[in-house]
């Protein structure tokens, strides 16, 4: 059956600010996968394309269910991730609101298409439910795939928990569709630790939904035979010739990263800023994103209880990277501990590059290959940084 013949649920269509800030909310105890799907349910999504991979599958199963219930107009299981991501790019040309999600190896398989989304001005929301990608095979949580995503031009948000997953996913739809942004927004959170774990999520009623997608308010024409010009090639192959400037590809790339930069004001508007800071006057900081931020938050609380001078920074936006905000937050820090769920320490590298005194950055603790990041490891680093003993056996 064609999508247009399917019954659609009646919704109260409202603006994103109302959804995020005003709509009355009630607390639910749900998994991260549910939280992402519940956000998609309320985002008035036109089309979602699914392909299974653990631990993402849960999300797209649930999105399939809400499609069956009439919250989404079109949904199908694609052949594999490259096909999925390409189909998202094709559908985007028609001017519709889109969602898909993937994990680790799936992200890498789809990456050829994903890296071109920004340049092709594809406004879509991509869920990344992180997972190991290295050989040998594993399905465990590890967010190394985010390092590959960081140079694609896409906006990237990293959710700490189920609540963030719900809020960021909704905000992502609003951000990706801004005329001055119009590049994809990825919402990442840790597989299993968040996707399969339950947490508290304040949600508004599902009778509310985001306003309809407006294909006209766009920096590029929809290729729908309704929007001029007729002779468009939005994604022209541009190579040096006498009818192409030397600069054309460069200014195009600049435009993508400028669009990424322009997303920052919306991150302030919808997420209250790209970072969260606690105890800004502290000597030692713990800084993390995603699940690592949850571990840091806990460590920060233990430290407060012990009367230690420890501050906390949560990085919500990985792209655009909050360079100025982090530099400002850490300007008086004597040490910054950056715990991560991957071996290469991509966040650590970003933080080092962002501040003038990179030497204060403590690399780790890091865990990977599916290991949990115990708060005690962070506490040990805090104590070391403060010149204190911390007794941690094993």
């Amino acid at each position: 059956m064609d999508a247009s013949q399917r019954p659609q649920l009646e919704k109260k269509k409202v603006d994103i600010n109302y959804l995020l800030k005003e709509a009355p909310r009630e607390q639910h105890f749900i998994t991260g996968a549910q939280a992402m799907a519940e956000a998609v349910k309320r985002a008035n999504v036109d089309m979602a394309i699914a392909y299974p991979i653990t631990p993402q599958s849960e999300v797209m199963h649930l999105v399939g269910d809400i499609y069956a219930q009439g919250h989404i107009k079109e949904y199908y299981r694609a052949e594999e991730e490259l096909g999925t991501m390409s189909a998202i790019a094709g559908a985007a040309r028609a001017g519709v609101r889109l969602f898909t999600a993937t994990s680790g190896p799936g992200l890498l398989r789809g990456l050829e298409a994903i890296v071109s989304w920004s340049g092709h001005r594809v406004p879509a929301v991509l869920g990344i439910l992180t997972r190991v990608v290295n050989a040998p095979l594993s399905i465990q949580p590890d967010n190394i795939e985010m390092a590959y995503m960081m140079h694609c031009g896409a906006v990237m948000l990293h959710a700490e928990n189920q609540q963030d997953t719900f809020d960021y996913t909704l905000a992502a739809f609003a951000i990706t569709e801004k005329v001055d942004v119009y590049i994809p927004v990825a919402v990442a959170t840790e597989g299993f630790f968040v996707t399969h774990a339950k947490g508290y999520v304040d949600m508004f009623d599902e009778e509310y939904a985001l306003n309809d997608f407006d294909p006209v308010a766009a920096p590029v024409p929809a290729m729908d035979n309704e929007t001029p010009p007729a002779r468009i090639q939005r994604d022209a192959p541009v190579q040096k010739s006498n009818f192409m400037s030397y600069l054309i590809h460069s200014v195009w790339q600049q435009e993508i990263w400028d669009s990424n930069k322009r997303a920052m004001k919306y991150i302030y508007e919808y997420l209250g800023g790209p970072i969260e800071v606690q105890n800004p006057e502290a000597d030692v900081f713990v800084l993390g994103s995603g699940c690592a931020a949850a571990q840091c938050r806990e460590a920060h609380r233990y430290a407060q209880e012990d009367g230690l001078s420890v501050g906390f920074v949560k990085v919500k936006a990985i792209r655009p990277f909050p360079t100025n905000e982090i530099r400002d937050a850490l300007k008086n820090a004597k040490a910054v501990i950056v715990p991560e769920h991957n071996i290469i320490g991509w966040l650590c590298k970003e933080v080092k590059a962002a501040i003038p005194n990179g030497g204060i950055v403590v690399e780790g603790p890091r865990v990977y290959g599916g290991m949990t990041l115990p708060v005690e490891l962070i506490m040990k680093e805090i104590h070391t940084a403060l010149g204190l003993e911390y007794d941690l056996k094993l």
Partner: protein
Amino acid sequence: MAEQKKRERYNIRISGLGGQGVVTTAHILGSTMDNAGKYASLVPFFGSEKRMAPVEAYVRASNQPIYEVGEVVYPDIIMIYHSQVVTHGKSYTMPFYTGLKPNSLIIINTDFDVLTEDDIKVLEDLNATVVQFDATALALKIAGTELATNMAMMGMLLGLTKLVSTENIEAAVRERFLGTSFVSSGGTAMLDSAIEKKFKKKEQLLEANMNVINKTFEMADSVDISGSELIVRFDI
């Protein structure tokens, strides 16, 4: 301290249209420098278009080894093989003098004054010298074929810069037409066979080319490129 040898270094941008021998010139220039025991590096550039479409090639020539790669963005010599490069913007680099360094040399093949007032002002500010002559007519007159236009242009360049001797050039031209050396494209091979048909023997072809080069050396001798005049013109 050992006396440091003065660095002679020319970064040359050659702009023309497909079929004019732009890339061939770059190759011969390279060989010429090599024959003279000096150094050269060249970067041909073909666009995706064909006949009468712009072609640019870049040559770096020096008495010392050359390390850098890529197109010449900031040239100190520009060679323009066709007036349309200037008048129709038929150049990858628009306008044609983009990036030109001060006190530089421009050689233009044209049968009329191509530079506009605005161009002249820019070039005067750069203290450039423009040598303007009808290389195509000269090639026709001396060698009996337009296909020797590139020889006239190259001869003028080498005559003005005194980078190498005519013997070095002859060796390079000989290598180009008598050797089994590099062929820059399928189109070039076609033109080669056309020009070879024109001359019964390859020796004749070589001689005709050398006559053009010798003539341009003579013409170049009469020019003072450090003079105050912006445009130097020749009657052919």
